[in-house]
């Protein structure tokens, strides 16, 4: 399994669990990262506060790749500004593009996301766009220079699971970039299912932040993601359309 690397924008990772850092205490980040086995953690960019001297960066273990998002952006231009500010904050070249113009469902604006992806990829960013799973859009993101594609499973923060399963499967089958399922995954079993389908990685935040025991849930997700990955690599057994197939020999019964 040591050769099974996740490669994003030329960078290699062993973990396939991307951890969010929102909506929970900074003091839990170290335990969450450790128990998740995570190598990538997402961050947001906001107006700096002069009152709080604590920085979230002080709580993130060394060697973890920072993945700033562009949350708060309502169009490509704002996303590009946030990405540039994030790079200036000294976190490397990764960026997760998140563009929303609707505050009720928080659905990503695919068209603006394609525009921002193209601009930032040309500036040397490893661009990881969050998107509504649409094959045509995913192809445009590939052409725009994306390093991965991050389709939503269900609305952000909903913990509702793989509502878009069929369409994520199409992206996995047709797009030659890592498909990272982002948003809406609420249970380890859902993460496992997405990995069995061939997803390259899972991003989760709310599922952990709203769990009873955050580090323990991080560990549960880690195990589920590894199980799903191994199942995918092993190749799932076939499903019968109808009838049954005995697992036991059909000869040698204790009767004549």
């Amino acid at each position, binding site marked *: 399994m040591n050769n099974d690397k996740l490669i994003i924008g030329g960078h290699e990772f062993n973990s396939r669990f991307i951890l*969010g*850092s*929102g*909506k*929970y205490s*900074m003091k839990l*980040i170290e335990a969450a990262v450790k128990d998740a086995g995570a190598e990538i953690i*997402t*961050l*947001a*960019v*906001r*107006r*700096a*506060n*002069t*009152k709080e*001297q604590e*920085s*979230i*960066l002080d709580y993130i273990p060394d060697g973890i790749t*920072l993945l*700033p*998002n562009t*949350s708060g952006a309502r169009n490509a231009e704002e996303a590009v*500004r946030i990405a*540039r*500010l*994030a790079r*200036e*904050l000294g*976190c490397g070249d990764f960026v997760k593009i998140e563009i929303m113009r609707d505050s009720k469902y928080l659905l990503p604006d695919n068209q603006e996301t394609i525009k921002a992806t193209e601009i930032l990829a040309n500036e040397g960013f490893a661009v990881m766009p969050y998107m509504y799973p649409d094959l045509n859009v995913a192809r445009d993101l590939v052409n725009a220079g994306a390093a991965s594609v991050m389709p939503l499973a269900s609305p*952000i*923060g909903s913990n509702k699971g793989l509502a878009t399963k069929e369409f994520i499967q199409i992206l996995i089958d047709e797009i030659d970039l890592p498909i990272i399922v982002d*948003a809406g995954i609420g249970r380890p079993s859902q993460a496992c299912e997405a990995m069995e389908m061939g997803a390259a990685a899972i*991003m989760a*935040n*709310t599922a952990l932040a709203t769990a009873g025991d955050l580090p323990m849930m991080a560990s549960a997700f880690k195990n589920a993601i590894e199980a799903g990955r191994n199942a995918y690599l092993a190749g799932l057994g076939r499903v019968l359309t109808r009838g049954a197939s005995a697992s036991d020999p059909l000869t040698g019964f204790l009767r004549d």
Partner: protein
Amino acid sequence: MVKINGEELNVAGKTIAEYLATTNYDPKRIAVERNGDIVFKSQYGETLLQDGDSIEIVSFVGGG
């Protein structure tokens, strides 16, 4: 007046470095944008705040 993170402040004529020195921001943990363009750390000392400028000073917070 200069708008900094949405607040109108009477700091026109100061450089960004001079303004930051009057605040509690940790210069290592912030990034600065002036009228939509990044101001690199190396430019703080030479970038003068002018009347009507719009400045954003940002840092990382938790997020998904």
